[in-house]
């Protein structure tokens, strides 16, 4: 061994530096978030161009900050070349399509986070706008205006919030349910597994779209109930029918993750480290979640990413059919449906074109990203 290096001291040093780094990072993050909440808003900065520039700079600052923190962290805690996270990132970047997907997803996320700032007009409807109904794209209205006079570009910006919130919200809840049930079902097997699995099969066999259509239709036919639901959802700040869609997607969306996790648990529970935990006396819940569930996450992320694409698509479809968002909610699907009525007249093509492109790009972005993550996690599974 070359010289006697005091490894314990080295570890202490590393820990001290890391802690200091975390502290610095937290302080800067808090400051940045405060700046965002207090300073960067439509009210404070009127001119759109200036606003856009400031948002751009703000994002750049965040990127540089995170990049710095990450690089510093890597410097302090050098992990070597064979780190699986490193290789995963490397493989993902090599996949050009997936990188593009990542870029699209990232852009939509920025759009959603800064929607009020990026949009040209506010989200509150002003009755004077009615005069400007159905105007083609121009300098004031880059995407034109819709039949109510609202600026389409701004609507698309706000619409991104709907899509992402719905997508993430549904998938996170669905993941929690799916993982919990999948782990329990896979680990215990036997009767418990049979019951849960049967129940899941029932859920899966439901004709989802028809169910939602029936639900929403039945609701509309029953004004009293309808009123109550509308009030309830207003208190949540959501569109009533959109809430229905959200609930329906959540209730029926977990079988996919359930099956994925359950299958993985069957093989994970046989592994030696699970046996080792049992021999040491780990509690049942500790084994289920800290040992088993944690090892199912990789493929679950893939299913979730693809799931978000599915949610966005389904919501768009339902809103298009008129069973989702109502006139007050700028869902891309609803916008598409409005544009659809005008699609035969070429001068109004833009009404359907822009929401359509937004949907198309976003869904494609999530799908290619999901595929890319799957290939990057385990290239052997490549087909």
């Amino acid at each position, binding site marked *: 061994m070359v010289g006697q290096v005091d490894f314990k001291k080295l570890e202490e040093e590393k820990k001290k530096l890391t802690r200091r780094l975390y502290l610095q990072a937290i302080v800067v993050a808090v400051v940045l978030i405060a700046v965002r909440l207090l300073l960067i808003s439509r009210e404070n900065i009127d001119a759109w161009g200036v606003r856009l520039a400031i948002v751009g700079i703000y994002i750049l600052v965040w990127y540089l900050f995170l990049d710095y923190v990450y690089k510093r962290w890597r410097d302090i805690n050098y992990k070597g*070349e064979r780190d699986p996270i490193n*290789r995963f990132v*490397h493989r993902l970047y090599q996949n050009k399509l997936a990188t593009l997907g990542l870029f699209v997803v990232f852009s939509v996320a920025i759009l959603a986070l800064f929607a009020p700032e990026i949009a040209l007009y506010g989200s509150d409807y002003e009755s004077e706008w009615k005069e400007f109904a159905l105007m083609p794209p121009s300098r004031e209205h880059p995407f034109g205006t819709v039949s109510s006079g609202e600026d389409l570009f701004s609507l698309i910006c706000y619409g991104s919030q709907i899509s992402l919130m719905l997508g993430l919200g549904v998938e996170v809840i669905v993941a929690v349910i799916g993982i919990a049930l999948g782990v329990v079902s896979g680990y215990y097997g036997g009767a418990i597994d049979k019951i849960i699995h049967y129940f899941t099969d029932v859920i899966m066999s439901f004709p989802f779209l028809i169910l939602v259509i029936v639900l929403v239709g039945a609701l509309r036919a029953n004004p009293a109930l309808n009123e109550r639901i509308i009030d309830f959802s207003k208190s949540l700040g959501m569109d009533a029918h959109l809430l229905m869609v959200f609930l329906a997607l959540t209730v029926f969306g977990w079988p996919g993750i359930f099956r994925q996790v359950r299958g993985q648990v069957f093989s994970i529970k046989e592994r030696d480290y699970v046996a080792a935990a049992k021999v040491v006396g780990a509690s049942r819940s500790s084994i289920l979640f800290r040992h088993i569930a944690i090892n199912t996450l990789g493929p679950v992320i893939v299913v979730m990413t693809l799931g978000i694409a599915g949610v966005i698509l389904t919501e768009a479809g339902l809103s298009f059919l008129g069973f989702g968002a109502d006139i007050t909610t700028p869902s891309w699907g609803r916008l598409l449906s409005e544009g659809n009525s005008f699609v035969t007249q070429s001068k109004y093509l833009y009404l359907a074109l822009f929401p359509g492109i937004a949907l198309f790009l976003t869904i494609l972005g999530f799908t290619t990203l999901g595929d890319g993550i799957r290939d990057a996690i385990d290239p052997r599974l490549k087909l």
Partner: protein
Amino acid sequence: MKDKEILMEVKDLVTRFYTEDGVVKALEGVSFNLYKGETLALVGETGCGKSVTALSILRLLSISGKTLKGEVLFYDDETKKRLDMSKEGPIEILKLEQSDMLKVRGFGMALITQDPMTSLNPVYTVGDQLMEVIKLHKKLSDDEAKKIAIELLEDVELTPPEDIFKKYPHQLSGGQRQRIVISISLAAEPALIFADEPTTALDVTIQARVLELMQELKEEFQTSLILITHNLGIVAETSDRVGVMYAGRVVEIADKYTLFKRPLHPYSQGLIAAVPVITEKREALSYIAGTVPNLIHPPSGCRFHPRCPYATEICKEKVPELKAVETDDHFVECWHVDEVIKDLDKKGGVC
């Protein structure tokens, strides 16, 4: 009395794998000779390149592997006839076209791998797979081929052969499957068989029988065998000569009695000393310090130098060459082989 007629000469094989982690320098100049009718064991630990050597000679490397340099000279007349080569002298395997290589594989050289399940097609019966090879080898009718297949099954002691003939691989045990693979490899009567860890997946008692069987068949069919293994016990039981490999080179070759009694390369000595043997009781097993080198960034010069007690400056700079020491068929590559011999004589043998 075995006359030492040479069957294959391997000279300076260099094979590299191009992976996402870097270039793996798997073989860095592998050289050895193989004589007709003998069993040569290639021994080494994981990563030493013994399997890669077989794959390089058979030209079965995966797409990321390339054999960059070297010569493989194959002196088999049967194969020459098959390839319609009238020229004098051996076949240069590495220079053959892929289409010619197809004629060499199976008939000139065969391969038995560790896991019989991957070499047997699960959707065809064992008999069908045997017959396929037989009919490719000789132009025979179905009936004649079936007769030969049944005979081969009897040779590998799969009884009753008519029953086994109709079975699918999954209906047989591991030992039986491995025997099928052996019989398939013999069906084409090759001059040389590569056996890559053929018994690692089998139980000890089955392993003994399969190894013995391979020896008997080798005698009967006059085939040479290159046995690739990490198990020194198997080497002692079945081989005639032994080649010890380390990090992509053959560091010592000798006949087995000499190698076990008088290993001259420091790595061979360390390897033999580390194996617990039933014939003596030791307090502690001596082992080789350090770990197997990283083949993407291998050590310079003699690749064993970081772990070698005899290493000096020259070992770090220049790769030693395989030279005959003590007798004309004991080869060692080491700059300090004289010192090693001195120390060994002081102790009077191994351990």
